[in-house]
């Protein structure tokens, strides 16, 4: 390819990305639930490093979450069963949002609920606030009305939830997909119908681990969500499939720990990427990824990171 010849030379690389309604100075986003409310890593990584940060999932009511142990390490992965511990909408608006709104990065609020009304309520209330760049709809929660099956595994429910959020806000709506499904393309098409502006994926894979000496599940909640490098091949595959299935911009995530991983997601079809568990391992990962992205673009003759999106699709 002529591009590979280094057209961009030593020039500045344009890192900015535009996802329907969501403009980011760079394509690297902190994944919800792994980066608290944005300030916890301040000593290690200035928050302005990030193109955006997605805060911990908020529910209408405060939640204490699941019993400990909430974490288990698995080969190249992490199981978590935090159980959506969060301060609840009211406290979030009062004590958290004002500080978040001042952050020198795009703030994405991740919302979770146990009924369609929960999501609508959150969107209505958050949709009026200043300082929020987008809402991310976490549809991986159990739907209490429908026997605990996740909203995110049934196309109908997924569409309904996203549509409810869509009606209540003018903010860009990111639909975050669960990977625990037979056909991720169906879910992607459902949230597109529901009016999502952007799709993010993947949330965690359901897993568990057993303490063989104690002969019982390690996690207090028995099941947990698997994230980290172990899941990356599944995540990249799903980004690839969703890229083919819908026309929405994609935020790809699942196991990113270095710039090569970020490039992999973008070549598969992602417009931006999120980093979750990778922060636990190395809090410098966002700046390392950005530096790597820039030099990759330079080496391969791209002048903007936007050129990477979906590039591997044409070579398969």
């Amino acid at each position, binding site marked *: 390819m002529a591009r590979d010849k280094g057209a961009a030379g030593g020039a500045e690389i344009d890192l900015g990305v535009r996802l329907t309604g969501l403009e980011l100075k760079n394509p690297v986003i902190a994944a919800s639930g792994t980066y608290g409310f944005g300030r916890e890593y301040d000593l290690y990584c200035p928050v302005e490093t990030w193109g955006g940060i997605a805060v911990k999932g908020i529910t209408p009511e405060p939640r204490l*979450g699941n019993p400990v142990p909430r974490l288990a*390490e698995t080969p190249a992965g992490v199981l978590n069963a935090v159980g959506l511990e969060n301060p609840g909408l009211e406290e979030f608006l009062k004590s958290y949002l004002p500080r978040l709104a001042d952050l020198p990065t795009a703030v994405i609020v991740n919302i979770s609920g146990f009924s369609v009304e929960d999501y609508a309520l959150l969107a209505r209330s958050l949709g009026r606030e200043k300082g929020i760049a987008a809402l991310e709809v976490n549809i991986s929660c159990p739907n209490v009305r429908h026997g605990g099956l996740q909203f995110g595994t049934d196309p109908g429910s997924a569409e309904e939830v996203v549509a409810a959020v869509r009606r209540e806000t003018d903010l860009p709506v990111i639909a975050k997909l669960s990977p625990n499904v037979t056909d991720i393309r169906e879910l992607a098409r459902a949230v597109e119908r529901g009016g999502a502006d952007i799709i993010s994926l993947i949330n965690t894979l359901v897993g568990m681990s057993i303490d063989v000496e104690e002969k019982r599940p390690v996690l207090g909640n028995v099941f947990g969500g698997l994230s980290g490098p172990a899941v990356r091949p599944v995540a990249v595959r799903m980004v690839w499939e969703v890229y083919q299935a819908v026309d929405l911009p994609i935020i790809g995530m699942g196991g990113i720990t270095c710039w090569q991983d970020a490039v992999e997601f973008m070549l598969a079809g992602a417009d931006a990427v999120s980093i979750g568990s990778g*922060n*636990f*391992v190395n809090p410098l990962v966002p700046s390392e990824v950005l530096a790597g992205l820039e030099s990759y673009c330079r080496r391969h003759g791209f002048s903007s990171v936007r050129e990477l999106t979906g590039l591997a699709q044409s070579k398969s």
Partner: protein
Amino acid sequence: MPLSYEEIISHESQGNPAEGLRRLVLRGSVAATARPGQFLHVRVSDRLEPLLRRPLSIASIDRTRGEVTLLYRVRGRGTETLARKRSGERLDVLGPLGNGFSIPEKGELWLVAGGIGIFPLYALARAGLAAGLKVHLFWGGESRNFLQSAGLAEWQDLGIPLHLSTMDGSLGDKGTVMLPLGKAEDPRSAANRLSGQPLPALSVAVCGPRGMMQAVAELGSARGWRVEVSLEERMACGVGACLGCSVTVRDERGRLTNRKVCQDGPVFPGKEVVWNGAR
């Protein structure tokens, strides 16, 4: 403190190899600000398995040399992998993290340890002595062999009263550390009952198995001691970002709420902890 690549000054097995205890001395920026009871979040390998950092307490602090010592027991893949690092290599650590123990202004400081819960207390003993406090150690372990492996000689060198117990009776009282603790606090309470005089304030720092910490905390709250316990929980981030290490506490107004062991702890007032919160 920012991420630091500490230099490994020495890294050796300590005591009886069968106990699997290791002593790791690090030189770098950590020592300058470390306080007793804080911990480091250690990256044991730059490969992806084991993946997560492991929290290890700072066992002693030498500010002049710029060194801290970690003492740990090899348990699973993380500590096994760490055990392979050699002196001269660099270790990627986050920290010092967490709040650490408080060092009272005056009065007595009793340290109560179960097993390898002894490790974070050594730095505290030294800080207490430096602050002019009267320091006692209560320490229970499996056996004489274990106590010796886990650093008994260094404690003896401190010249403070040691109240020991072992499960097999090979040193000190036979049983848990509650035995020597009871023996020491009994005459104290009795003297108090007789004299009616308030006793000098007693601060108690506890580290060990959960059940033992609960027992000390409950005894302490009956006696009006100021008890601090150092909790353990599995950690991912170590900085308060993932909510993996939650512990339920009763706040000032008696309401149940969550705290993070990594950020709000690992040291908590004994009376705040809801002991049956975890399984």
